[in-house]
């Protein structure tokens, strides 16, 4: 069990700054997800924690001890890789036990431990198979087993589910959550999928272009995004945005220089209620998902290239006629406001 701390961590490859100064504290036993679009530096960050990549500046410490001079294998860390990175020429069992083998541990002890871990991951019947004879999900379990066998203080996951199809992804997500509950280990989980992050993590770090946009619990990020980027990144379907000042939007005059507003799809209604703010638009498309319907409405005030607003409508609710004008409404409390730099203004929205 361990806490992890990053202090002003930087990384440059030549003239390119990949990580531009990151501070992060991960508490003992915490599950932290690092999320961001591809190329934001999240995998590099993970590799620096693991000791696979040098830091250009800053410090990484575990339990208060600086790890800069500690080689990767001695940091008490294990990684589960996106491609699983199983050794193709070894059986699943030997893959799991290879770290112990390298450390020179007796064969019998290795076998005992591998068997125990395999049972825990429900792959004990697969130990004699080679990776290519295993399915994606089974490979994933072997990769997790390989991480478990070293009894690490910290688990790192590098997009572990992105090579799996949708069904398996859900299954493995539950599996990882169960593992975290059982082991109470510190886990740092890198993903580009905000659903994985919000369902698994205690706290989420949103990364963009090598710096942190926001750190917080999933609830905080959802309800109080620090800026437009976070607001748009977390939540599916994504938040609706509209620029202010292009005219047509009925907003109460405030003292703050509001440049844009955002409203989550579930907070928008098709008929404005009394006290609601509202906007007029035209229904361009309806998607019936069975349990709900998604309405896409192009705002009258929106620029030609602005994305249409999404409105969630419960199944069975009447849908307005297509291509007809509609009025959208939302409560002022549900509205997020952003300034010209995209920063959040005020504390509203629940």
């Amino acid at each position, binding site marked *: 069990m361990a806490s992890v701390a990053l202090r002003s961590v930087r990384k440059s490859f030549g003239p390119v700054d990949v990580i531009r100064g990151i501070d992060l504290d991960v508490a003992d036993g915490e599950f932290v997800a690092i999320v961001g679009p591809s190329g934001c530096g999240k995998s590099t960050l993970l590799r620096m924690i693991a000791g696979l990549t040098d830091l250009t500046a800053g410090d990484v410490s575990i339990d208060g001890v600086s790890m800069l001079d500690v080689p990767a294998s001695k940091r008490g860390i294990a*990684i589960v890789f996106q491609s699983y990175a199983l050794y193709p020429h070894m059986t699943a069992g030997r893959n799991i036990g290879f770290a112990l083998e*390298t450390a020179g541990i007796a064969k019998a002890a290795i076998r005992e431990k591998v068997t125990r871990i395999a049972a825990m991951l429900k792959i004990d019947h697969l130990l004699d198979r080679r990776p290519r004879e295993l399915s994606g999900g089974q490979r994933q379990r072997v990769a997790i087993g390989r991480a478990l066998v070293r009894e690490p203080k910290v688990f790192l996951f590098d997009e572990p589910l992105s090579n799996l199809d949708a069904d398996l992804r859900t299954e493995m997500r539950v599996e990882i959550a169960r593992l975290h509950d059982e082991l109470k280990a510190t886990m740092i989980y890198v993903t580009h999928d905000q659903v994985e992050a919000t369902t698994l993590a205690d706290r989420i770090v949103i990364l963009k272009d090598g710096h942190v946009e926001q750190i917080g619990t999933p609830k905080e990020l959802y309800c109080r995004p620090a800026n437009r980027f976070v607001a748009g990144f977390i939540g599916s379907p994504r938040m609706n945005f509209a620029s202010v000042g292009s005219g047509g939007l009925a907003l109460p005059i405030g003292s703050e220089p509001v440049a844009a507003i955002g409203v989550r799809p579930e907070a928008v209604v098709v008929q404005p209620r009394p006290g609601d703010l509202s906007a007029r638009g035209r229904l361009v498309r309806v998607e019936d998902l069975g349990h709900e319907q998604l309405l896409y409405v192009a705002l009258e005030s929106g620029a030609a290239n602005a994305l249409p607003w999404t409105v969630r409508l419960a199944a069975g609710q009447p849908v307005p006629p297509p291509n007809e004008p509609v009025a959208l409404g939302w409560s002022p409390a549900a509205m997020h406001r952003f300034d010209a730099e995209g920063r959040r203004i005020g504390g509203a929205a629940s």
Partner: protein
Amino acid sequence: MIGYRAQRRIRGAALSFALVLVVVYTIFPYYWAIVSSFRTGQQMFDVSLVPSFNLAHYRALLGDTVFVGSLWNSVIVASSTTVISLALALGAAYALGRLSFPQRRLILMGVLVISMFPQVVVLTGMFELVRWFGLYNRVGSLIFAYLIFTLPFTIWVLTSFIQEFPRELEEAAIMDGCSHWRILTRILLPLMGPAMASTGLLAFIAAWNEFLFALTFILTDDSRTVPVAIGLISGSSRYEFPFGPVMAASVIVTVPLIALVLIFQRKIVAGLTSGAVKG
């Protein structure tokens, strides 16, 4: 007006005809060598394409201690050169393909330039070295000298093979506590069987076929390798055509080679082209 289908049929026939022509062009000379190797005396002048199975030349060659000796020399030279090249190049390829250090590109370029060296350029200096080491007129001189063309090539091909392994595999091994040496010997090497086989085979063929050094550094029959031995076969008299024995010797020397090449066809092509594609 010719229909689409007829057009296609004509095209197919033309292509098949071209294919047969090319196959005959590539195979016939070798086939004719085999046919001729079974003929003696007046039969040599027969133009019939059907071989008789007269083993006289083969018996004579395999009973000839000098020829068998040179065959054996070739085996020793080619396999030693191959093993030494692979062993030396494997480490270098790992460093060049996987580790990052400032002079990496420079060394890769250097290796490429050395592979373009004409053999005569090093002939003087190599001759001197061979004499210094006391290897003149010994098989060892060739094992040593052949490294100049097998090494750059093996380094180049193995490097490009090593670069194809996913980096995560190595990172996983580092997390498991492996040193670079252990990564190379326990993780990469077991996976490099096919790469080693194709590279080694190409090095073996190059060493087996070499002529210039073998002609220059070896003086007497007992240390000679087969290419030079074949080049020097002559009839017992001025009026006898040595082509029968020469063809038989050629077949003996090439049959194992061709068997290997046909068995490892795909691997050889992979090795040959992977070296070139990165160039």
